[in-house]
């Protein structure tokens, strides 16, 4: 099972919409990262744009740009993924129930609060009648969408699939998760996020889309492996999963040129990453990405965007390299392993190849 990444588009807390990750990291002086939104005018018509909430605009704009860059006007399937869906719309409707005592509520926010709204809006804009799915499973949301797409492409049920992971942070979701202890209580400096010995991560969000294809248009990177696992019994299981994953691809750790780790900065939750770095993946060069996009359910989509850009440009962006990590200068980048987990519950392994 392998698919080519024909195009990749990310709206993230960094200036990534242009396709490149700039050297300078933006907006990480606090423990909350917000997306740098593009000018939507170019991507969404005024009439429908006005009715859309922020997450819908982020989703639709990234999807439209991604399709434009792929040269595919009508994908054979549209598959979206989100951990929490259209949160702001959900809050608007909940507020309206409370404020109006269940009367005179407007249905607009209710309609838009549905988890498949973004996938549906894309289909509506394109007049696309094809397969349309939305996965909503925590840290496996995007991974489920990717597996679905990879199966359909491998079985020749589809040639080109639009797939995206979208999550938004609202003031309330940030505040509630802060109370749950998800975020650092002290402001984190991105430069030593991964060196801290405190609990909590930095909150993030993003909209990342890909057109996955059966065929390459030349220099396209490939996704050649995907494996997920649920609630591992300990670090040893994590390591054995990684080992089995590489063996199933006929690889050994030294065949991996670069590892992208989903370290979140939470000292306790990052233990599995430290374990594999001290054992099986020792000696391997690595980069991190959550100081760039923050922690959220569909963040592995951002990791794939980053990995795909690295393979394409044969260059590791300075902004992705954490302190204490050394990337050899003339590194030939053929194979990247992504290891990410969400709160040590949903774990993901992805193999990217040139």
């Amino acid at each position, binding site marked *: 099972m392998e698919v080519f990444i024909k195009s990749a588009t990310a709206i993230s807390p960094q200036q990534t919409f242009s396709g490149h990750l700039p050297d300078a990291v933006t907006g990480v002086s606090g423990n909350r990262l917000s997306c740098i939104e593009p000018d939507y005018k170019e991507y969404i018509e005024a009439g429908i744009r006005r009715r859309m909430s922020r997450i819908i605009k982020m989703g639709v704009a990234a999807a439209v740009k991604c399709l434009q860059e792929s040269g595919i006007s009508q994908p054979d399937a549209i598959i979206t993924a989100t951990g929490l869906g259209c949160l702001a719309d959900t809050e608007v409707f909940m507020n309206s129930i*409370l404020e109006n005592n269940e009367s005179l509520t407007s249905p607009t926010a*209710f309609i838009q609060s549905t*988890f498949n*709204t973004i996938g*549906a809006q894309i289909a509506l804009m394109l007049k*696309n009648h094809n397969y349309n*799915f*939305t996965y909503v499973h925590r840290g496996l949301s995007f991974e489920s969408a990717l597996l679905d797409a990879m199966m359909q492409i491998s079985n020749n049920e589809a040639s080109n699939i639009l797939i995206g992971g979208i999550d938004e942070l609202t003031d309330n979701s940030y505040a509630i998760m802060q109370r749950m202890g998800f975020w650092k209580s002290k402001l984190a400096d991105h430069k030593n996020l991964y060196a801290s010995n405190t609990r909590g991560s930095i909150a993030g969000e993003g909209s990342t889309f890909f057109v996955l294809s059966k065929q390459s248009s030349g220099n396209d990177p490939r996704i050649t492996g995907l494996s997920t696992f649920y609630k591992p019994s300990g670090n040893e299981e994590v390591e054995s999963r990684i080992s089995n*994953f590489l063996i199933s691809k006929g690889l050994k750790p030294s065949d991996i040129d670069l590892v992208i780790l989903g370290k979140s900065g939470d000292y306790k939750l990052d233990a599995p990453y430290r374990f594999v770095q001290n054992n099986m993946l020792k000696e391997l060069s690595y980069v991190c990405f959550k100081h760039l996009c923050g922690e959220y359910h569909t963040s592995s989509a951002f990791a794939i965007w980053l990995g795909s850009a690295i393979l394409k440009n044969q260059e590791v962006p300075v902004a992705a390299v954490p302190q204490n990590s050394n990337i050899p200068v003339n590194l030939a980048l053929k194979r990247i392993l992504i290891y990410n987990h969400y709160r040590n519950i949903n774990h993901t392994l992805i193999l990217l190849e040139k």
Partner: protein
Amino acid sequence: MAYIFLVPQIIELSMSVKIYVTGLGMVSGIGLDVPQTLDAIKNSRSGIGELTLFDSVHKGNLPVCEVKASNQKLKEDLQITKTTSRTALLGIMAAKEALVSAGIVQSPVRTGLISSTSVGGMDMSEKFYGIYKKDSAKGKLRNMISHDCGDSTERIADYLGIKDYVSTISTACSSAANAIMFGARLIKNGFLDRVVVGGTDSLTKFTLNGFNALMIVDKGGCKPFDENRAGLTLGEAAGYIVLESEQIVKKNNKKIYCELKGYGNANDAYHQTASSPEGNGPFMSMKLTLDMSGLAIDNIDYVNVHGTGTPNNDLSEGKALIRLFGEKVPKFSSSKAYTGHTLGAAGGIEAVLSVMCIEHQMIIPNLNFTTPITELGLIPETKFLQPVPVNNVMSNSFGFGGNVSSLIFSRV
């Protein structure tokens, strides 16, 4: 423990692998399990009644179809002490019944759970949110941790000891049919041998007010496919089926309820909430499913229609039925006048009901029907029929965002 991960054991993908239904479980307003459900169906006993689960200005005004068990009772029956959303409790109850009916105690084969929901743990979050809104330092966080859709799925999986693959789908009212489809794909592609698939949704203030704001709730209770229908009745439920590969079924010489012979998903791409007047999407999903099954139109003995009772859905779906079947529209009925519209669970409980129609050679009556829709002239089945030959059943589930799905179950 054996490590099973997502690399197919069967290297050559065999899309022709047959998928069998080996277990059923459901809980809804008409019964806490499959036998109670069957009894209600036979006796035309609807579960629709007055709202009791939460305080609401709509109490006594908008009828609903509640599961007749409090959270406390569900927790006692399931021996759960932790704070758990009603969505998860209903899901655990139905998925457990499905696994038990499939005769599965210990699970030596690769087993997954694909569940769907449209509200997730909203029944708990809305308790939290009112208090939080007044004072952001208040509100019990344990009522908020189950807000996301994945929570109910992981609680069901943990309760049942399912670990090899879990995922959740949310495409509004077609969600559970899509969960069944994804589960079947995972077996066909060699990732799993067995998968529990379906959906769960509890009744919430959020959805009740949402549909009320859309002005598509019938104050007199839903009347699917009737000329005087005035909207849906909201319900709550959970319904799961167990799918197993041909190989595992043969090896274990298992009882088979039927085969999942076809599935199809498309998008109406007409409007965020309304169906196209010509029924384009519904026609496409039914056609795709029929084509996949390899059956002819006259092989379909019964269609369990989506039939919500909204003016828009029933007209659009009826037109699609006529487009696909022409003069020969099979016997059809909506079971929603029994159970209410259970949103993310609808495709799950209706899959269970469709399989029951094959198992018991019966057809479910469409309650509350008196007058055919003028533009269609279609008359659903209004009497409980048994025995009647039922070899192939089509089940439709359509949702917001133009999401349309169909399934075909066939007698083995």
